[in-house]
């Protein structure tokens, strides 16, 4: 499928230099000299790298049809994350590299969306937030009232994030898996 670059929208998948990229941002821009442009930020689905690229707005861009399918996360090894499509029991492996830091926040047995193109799993669609239990954290000293102060906490998936001092072991917190930021408690 082809489209004019001027129609590109966030979330779409395109072929650029023979690789598949997801549009992270697409902003119209007219320099007033020559044709209008589409300034885009695109993410390579294989390497996970982001680049800025300026398309001419009337340039043909090949779009890639990518399905996002909800699957159960099974486990990971050194190279891949493994998922199962519960409708078909087919298993898919997603390479760790493009997933990046978000992989550390996935919980075995939970469901996540996986991007599939021609039956090949390219990446996961990182959830907006994940809910994870704290397994290790220091007790805050009484009288420590510095506002905004943080301490490290180990979560059930093994990853460590910074949390406010009032958070305790056993509590479930909400984290943005792309930035590792604490956003609240359950």
């Amino acid at each position, binding site marked *: 499928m082809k489209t004019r670059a001027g129609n590109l929208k966030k979330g779409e998948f395109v072929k650029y*230099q023979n690789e598949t990229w997801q549009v992270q941002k697409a*902003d*119209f*821009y*007219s*320099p*007033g*000299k*020559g*044709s*209008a*442009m589409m*300034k885009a930020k695109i993410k390579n689905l294989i390497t996970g790298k982001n680049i*800025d*690229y*300026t*398309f*001419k707005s009337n*340039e*043909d861009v090949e779009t890639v049809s990518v399905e996002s399918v909800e699957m159960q996360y099974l486990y990971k090894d050194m190279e891949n994350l493994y998922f199962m499509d519960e409708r078909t029991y087919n298993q898919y492996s997603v390479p760790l590299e493009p997933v990046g830091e978000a992989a550390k926040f996935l919980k075995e047995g939970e469901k996540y969306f996986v991007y599939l193109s021609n039956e090949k799993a390219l990446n996961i669609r990182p959830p907006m937030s994940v809910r994870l239990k704290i397994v290790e954290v220091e007790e805050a000293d009484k009288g420590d009232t510095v506002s905004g102060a943080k301490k490290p906490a180990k979560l059930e998936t093994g990853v460590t994030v910074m949390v406010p001092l009032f958070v305790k072991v056993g509590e479930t917190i909400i984290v943005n898996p792309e930035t590792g930021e604490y956003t609240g408690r359950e």
Partner: protein
Amino acid sequence: MKIKTSIQNLEKYKIALKVEQAIHEFLQKKTYLKVDLPILSPSLIPESYLEIFETKFRFFGKAKNLYLTPSPELFLKRLLADGTGSNYYLGKCFRNSEPSSKLHSPEFTMLEMYKLGTDYLKLANEVLEMLKFIAIKINNKTEIIYQGNKFNFLKWEKISVVRAFEKYALIGKEELFNKERFILKAKEKRYNIKNFTYEDLFSQIYVQEIEPNLGRNGYPTMIYDYPKEFAALAKLNNDGKTAQRFEFYIDGIELGDCYSELTDWEEQEKRFIDEARKRKEMGKTNHPIDKGFIEALKYGLPESSGIAIGFERLAMIFADATSINQLKLINIDL
């Protein structure tokens, strides 16, 4: 399409108001005449890179086509020829097919000013003085902080288009002025060249590789002398290859576009015909060409230089905003 009120923008909006006041104060001190202009016009200057809004005036079954002006140029230059002296307009302009984005809006505010008896380089000095004047009004200093970086208005960082292509895109002078070689170079750089002209590829490489580097060294950057294909209504330099045109940037954002104005009516008419033909080829809205403008040039446009500055973009810099929408109290996303 929704109408949104954005009262959280009040602080930034008030800074934009101060920028506006400072501009009026500065230009009137420099004896530019402020002029209010029609927004609806029966004819326009043909510009191949702009699309326009068309509407109709109706009265007892008779209808007449009118166009929202994409720039005040056609009015201001007539007035120059008629003897107003240096003049300026600060008001709304309209450009169709330019969706809302951080730096674009189909309706926006333009500052366009013309100074008599001067060329683009001299007008650049006055623009710098105006930026300094605004900074002092807003910040009590000749500098401002934009997105964490300091910008001082005591001098320009100057770079020619030729030098910028050499430095940032590794494209030499010979390749820049030779269309075939330039297109080959673009192909080498893995740009899509199929069905694209020299002008298209120049703009693409300019936006992708040059612009992000401009206005990054603590001063506004003035980039000057564009290839003649981008002369628009500017005079050519003696080299015959470049036009007397400059643009200026802060933090990679284009803020203004200046020409030494073309006064030769025959050359102007030739460029009009060429632009009108391009518009037709591109399938853009057909509009009557403002012939009276050519008549005004025949009568005699005085030697002058003019600059168009995107007001919202300029105010955005002084208000430390990252999008022109952050200055507005009412936003409509198109």
